[in-house]
């Protein structure tokens, strides 16, 4: 349970966020400049002008009306900003140790290093790390302080899109092994769906929506928010692998998706897969004789154009897909809401997140 009631005077508008969320993991969605980062900074205590009340699981973080406004160092909140913000003069090990309390130091450090798999990086300096490595170190540094809340500000934005799928599992692991509540700022609808139980949408400093991530995404795509990126994230149950174990099946409701074989997979286990929107092929004619194993008829439910790109929402095989096309391709195919299409997705386009 996270309760937020915060006001901050900003130069463009007055940020006023009020939300009571019956969840410990909350995605904060909304376009650039809607006040998402300011909200996180206020909760972390980095905005002196912020006022209001924040409680996490009944614990009071701040309550300015009651005169409770602790400085950031006393809040026990782990903040992971977009650019990681690692200390350039310290190596990875010293960065992770920076905020650790003396007591329990060793075990916390080791746990953070283990969860984020950064042992091989410990002696290196931030300038030599890749974007994804930096984010993992920043996450490790935050969790090593034993925070009571994690604030994650687009932790994947600075990471190469191709590598995002590799960072997400770490986030999920942090959530599962530590059980720390968090607020997760993102543009990416798929990420929100994968990591959070609840979502709020900010627009020009106020909450325009609070509810499930799925409903938030629907609202955002209805708004044709060009900043909302849609990765396909599918959560389902694994079924016995196919012949000779060369592929697996993911059951979502009545639909079966063909996913890569995973020798560690247990039949009946829950699993989450992602598919990049670039990997979803769209055809307006029936597809036959293609090598892709996932070929399904469907219908266009939304078209979101942004710049030279278009994101096509397609209902097929009982789930909703997002395909990324160029606008030209969208026009040539005549894709618009209600058009019948076929989609094709290669088995290898599915990446297991957990």
């Amino acid at each position, binding site marked *: 349970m996270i309760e937020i009631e915060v006001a901050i005077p900003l130069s463009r508008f007055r940020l006023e966020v009020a939300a009571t969320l019956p969840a410990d993991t909350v995605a904060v969605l909304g376009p650039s400049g809607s006040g998402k980062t300011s909200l996180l900074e206020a909760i*972390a205590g980095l905005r002196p002008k912020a006022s209001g009340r924040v409680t996490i699981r009944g614990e009071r973080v701040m309550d300015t009306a009651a005169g409770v406004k602790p400085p950031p160092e006393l809040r026990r909140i782990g903040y992971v900003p977009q650019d990681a913000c690692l200390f350039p003069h310290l190596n990875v090990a010293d960065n992770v140790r920076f905020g650790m309390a003396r007591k329990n130091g060793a075990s916390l450090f080791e746990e953070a290093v283990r969860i984020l798999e950064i042992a091989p990086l410990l002696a290196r300096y931030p300038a030599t790390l890749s974007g994804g490595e930096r984010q993992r170190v920043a996450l490790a540094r935050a969790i090593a302080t034993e925070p009571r809340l994690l604030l994650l500000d687009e932790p994947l934005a600075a990471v190469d899109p191709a590598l995002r799928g590799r960072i997400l599992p770490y986030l999920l692991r942090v959530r599962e092994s530590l059980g720390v509540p968090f607020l997760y700022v993102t543009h990416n609808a798929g990420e929100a769906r994968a990591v959070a139980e609840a979502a709020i949408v900010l627009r020009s400093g106020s909450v325009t929506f609070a509810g499930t991530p799925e409903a938030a995404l629907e609202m955002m795509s209805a708004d044709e928010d060009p900043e909302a990126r849609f990765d396909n994230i599918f959560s389902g149950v694994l079924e016995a692998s196919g012949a000779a174990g060369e592929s697996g099946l993911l059951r979502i409701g009545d639909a079966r998706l063909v996913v890569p074989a995973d020798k560690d997979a247990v039949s009946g286990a829950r699993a989450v897969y992602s598919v990049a929107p670039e990997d979803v092929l769209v055809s307006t004619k029936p597809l036959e004789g293609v090598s892709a194993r996932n070929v399904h008829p469907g219908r266009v439910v939304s078209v979101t154009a942004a710049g030279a790109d278009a994101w096509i929402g397609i209902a097929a095989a009982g789930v909703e897909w997002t395909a990324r096309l160029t606008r030209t391709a969208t026009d040539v195919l005549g894709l618009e809401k209600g058009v019948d299409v076929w989609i094709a997705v290669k088995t290898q386009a599915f990446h297991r997140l957990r």
Partner: protein
Amino acid sequence: MAEVSDGSILLLTLRVAAIATLAILPIGVFVAWKLARHEGAARTLLETLLSLPLVLPPTAVGLLLLEMLRRSGPLARLLDRLGIEVLFTWKAVVLATAVMSFPLLVRPARTAFEEVEPRLLAMGRSLGCGPFAVFRRVALPLAWRGLLSGTLLAFSRALGEFGATIMIAGNIPGRTQTMALAIFHRNQLGQNDAAFRLVAITVVIAFAVVWTTEIITRRRSHRTET
């Protein structure tokens, strides 16, 4: 008047310059840190005041100091009560050089602190450090180059101070006569060869200090290169 050796003049000069630099170092770093983190009219005013010794004639600064240290002033009375005699002693040389060198320490130090990304400081706070711990663990290690070059600049300025020193410390061989004063003095007495010996020494020292400063400020740390 007994002839004072080049060596003892050099030693006196190095000693007072070192003491003056060490004395202004903590204050200068503190002031630079405060200036770097604040904006507004007060900052501009303070900065202007602190820079005055750079642009005023050193003798003018010396005369102001002399006035403050005269028997009648409050500062003079305090020193008198403590039994500290300043005027026309080596302490006066330290005071004069400290005042004149102060802006040369503060300016590069301030610039160095301004270059420390404020978000790193905020991050340090969020990770549980108080303001002083963040200063010590984040700001100082990131700004040390600027601080060191400011310190060396202040030190080299202290070595050559003349105008303010002669006003409040006089030119007493063996007691307050530094290199700069001795060069002037020897030249006045027509001892040009002796004056040039001192000039040679000052050139060597100044060269060494400025050279070191250049190297420190130019070289980038390997680990911060991408």
